[in-house]
């Protein structure tokens, strides 16, 4: 058993789920003949045929809407957005069709929408999105954001087996990152939706984060230990909906200081809701201001110096963490 990349873990998850359950199928732009823009589905067409690996026209509403229709029929479609930015073209199907269906009509819509999200790849304003807040705000859809190779596979399998619409946001910067190569269990496993995980234990502060920012946060935590003698806990949320409130509260009750880190923009982001939860539930436990590190409230830029200025990184986390520690 060899080590695999984050991208290979995603590919394995889809392939194994399609082998396990004939109701599972994949549809999206260039997913068949071409094997997907990032080659997640390379070889799938040969194995599963064109009825289960469907090359679609450039029609996000048709892709997501067809997934909704098939899911109503009891199938378990996986709809790929070639870049997650394009999900905006299929927004109505998610917001008004899929997410409200069970609540109003009692009919489950077991489907996954997945695609490459996030920046750092010089993708510019239309190939770098972190769209989680739009859907985090929408009742009726689950949102998961894997940070590791193990989770990429386990969360995707859990998403496919879930009976609700699940938005699975993979981070394209992590796809082939050598440090994330990992040997995965040979047996079938899932990472349950709604369970956060402590990536690093600490008593001085909690960093709440998810996705690619888990790795920036871990690096910052390491530096803080080495240079500042601070023990920083890093909690990887993994699922945004359902949110593991228990794990969040448990950690912050112990550390009494909290730094929230996400790649998405600041205002109305996930961090805003986390801050509200903490202010409401743990007011008396907090020994410092709830602090956020996020992208500024501007669209995602293209040029390298702009992108570097825009993205949260270890430096920005260190600065915020040191201020909070000194409070």
């Amino acid at each position, binding site marked *: 058993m060899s080590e695999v990349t984050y991208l290979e873990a995603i590919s394995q998850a889809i392939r194994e789920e399609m082998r396990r359950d004939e109701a599972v199928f994949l549809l999206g732009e260039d997913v068949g003949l071409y094997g997907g823009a990032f080659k997640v589905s390379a070889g799938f067409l040969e194995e599963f045929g064109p009825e289960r690996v469907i090359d*679609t026209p450039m029609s996000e509403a048709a892709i997501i*809407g067809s997934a909704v*229709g098939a899911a109503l*029929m009891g199938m378990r479609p996986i709809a790929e957005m070639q870049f997650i930015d394009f999900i905006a073209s299929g927004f109505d199907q998610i917001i008004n069709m899929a997410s409200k269906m069970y609540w*109003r009509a009692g009919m*489950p819509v*077991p489907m996954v929408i997945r695609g490459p999200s996030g920046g750092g790849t010089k993708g510019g304003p239309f190939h770098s999105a972190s769209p989680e807040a739009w859907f985090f705000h929408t009742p009726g859809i689950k949102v998961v954001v894997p940070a590791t190779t193990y989770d990429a596979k386990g969360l995707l399998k859990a998403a496919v087996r879930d*009976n609700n619409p699940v938005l699975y946001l993979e981070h394209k910067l992590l796809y082939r990152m050598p440090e994330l190569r990992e040997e995965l269990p040979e047996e079938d496993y899932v990472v349950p939706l709604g369970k956060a995980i402590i990536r690093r234990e600490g008593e001085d502060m909690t960093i709440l984060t998810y996705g690619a920012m888990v790795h920036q946060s871990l690096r910052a935590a390491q530096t803080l230990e080495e240079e500042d003698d601070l023990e920083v806990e890093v909690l990887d949320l993994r699922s945004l909906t359902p949110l593991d409130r228990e794990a969040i509260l448990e950690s912050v009750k112990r550390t009494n200081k909290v730094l929230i880190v996400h790649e998405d923009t600041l205002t109305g982001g996930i961090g805003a809701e986390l801050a509200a939860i903490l202010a409401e539930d743990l007011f008396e436990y907090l020994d410092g201001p709830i602090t956020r590190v996020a992208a500024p409230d501007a669209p995602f830029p293209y040029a390298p110096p702009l992108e570097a200025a825009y993205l949260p990184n270890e430096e920005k986390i260190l600065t915020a963490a040191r201020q909070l520690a000194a409070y």
Partner: protein
Amino acid sequence: MGSGREREDLLRIYYFMRLTRAMEDRTRTLFLQGRVVGGVYTAQGHEATTVGAAMMLGEGDFIVPQHRDLGMHLVGGTSPRAVMCQWLARGNSPTLGRDGQLHIGDIHHGIVPSISMLGESLPVACGIGLTMKMRKRSTLVLASCGDGAANTGPFHEALNFASVQTLPIVFVIENNGYAYSTPNNIEFAIENLSDRAHAYGMPGETVDGNDVIGVMKAVRRAVEHVRSGKGPALVECKTFRVRGHSEADKAEYVPKELLEEWLKKDPIKRFEQYLTEEGILTGARRTEIEEKVKATVDDAVRFAEQSPAPHPETVTDYVFAPDGPIAIIGEPGAEDPRYVNALDTRTGKPFTTISGAQAIALNTVPEEVGRR
């Protein structure tokens, strides 16, 4: 004049057209009495299209109706009680009072619930069609929309995708002249919306949507095309919305002469005249049908009025479906209660949209009664 069975089929069509009209008339009364809390959207004048099109379906076929398609719903088996419970926002309505109008369905009986974003149901119809194709079924989907929705992106995406994938879908456009207050001539710059079918490589024809026999014949041609495995087909039924967009809309923007012209073409009156001339609809049969229609509507309203309002504390329940196995709809054992989608798991009971009593389908259109 046709065989006895054909005569009975025609009378059933007439019954559904009358029931549709009577249900809507009563809904309007309830609205004027302040008993319907939200907007009311009716479709007087559409009955030939909605009833006629749905009559062409068979076992295992699906309808994907829109907000004005009560006729399609009733033919498909939607219970008048369920419809009235929806309008009156009852806690036992198919949506448990969470949604109104005709946004109801039962996937086990081939009815897909619609939403207010018109046109968005058509991609969903593609997903139903894709499933039928993957599961090697010979069934099809009847998906409708109005002239307004024909200008949305999802309409065009769905037609194109259905055609590329050779999906078993009959698209029906109910062109009723107006999208709210916007007349056809500033909605699109073509004579017939069925021309759009050709752009996507499928047959399309335009028919008089107020002629039920003509609608049935055109939809049957489309159904035959789809069942032969050649992919989707489209029928545009030209009709007219003789009332406002909703009951709150007086529709003063509609020229009086135009309205009067279409009122003269009322599909029910036309069919009635035909049936009477042919000696199919006798005075006694007419009385019998009217009594049945009235009893059905009365029963539905009474049932809805006696039904409970939803409990306020249930408002946040059932946002997510529970875990468990999911059946592929329409396959043996799919209604086994162990499946999460077999019953309405919100209530643990069967879905309430379908009464079971009405679901009928005609597989023939009597050829010789085509003249008008």
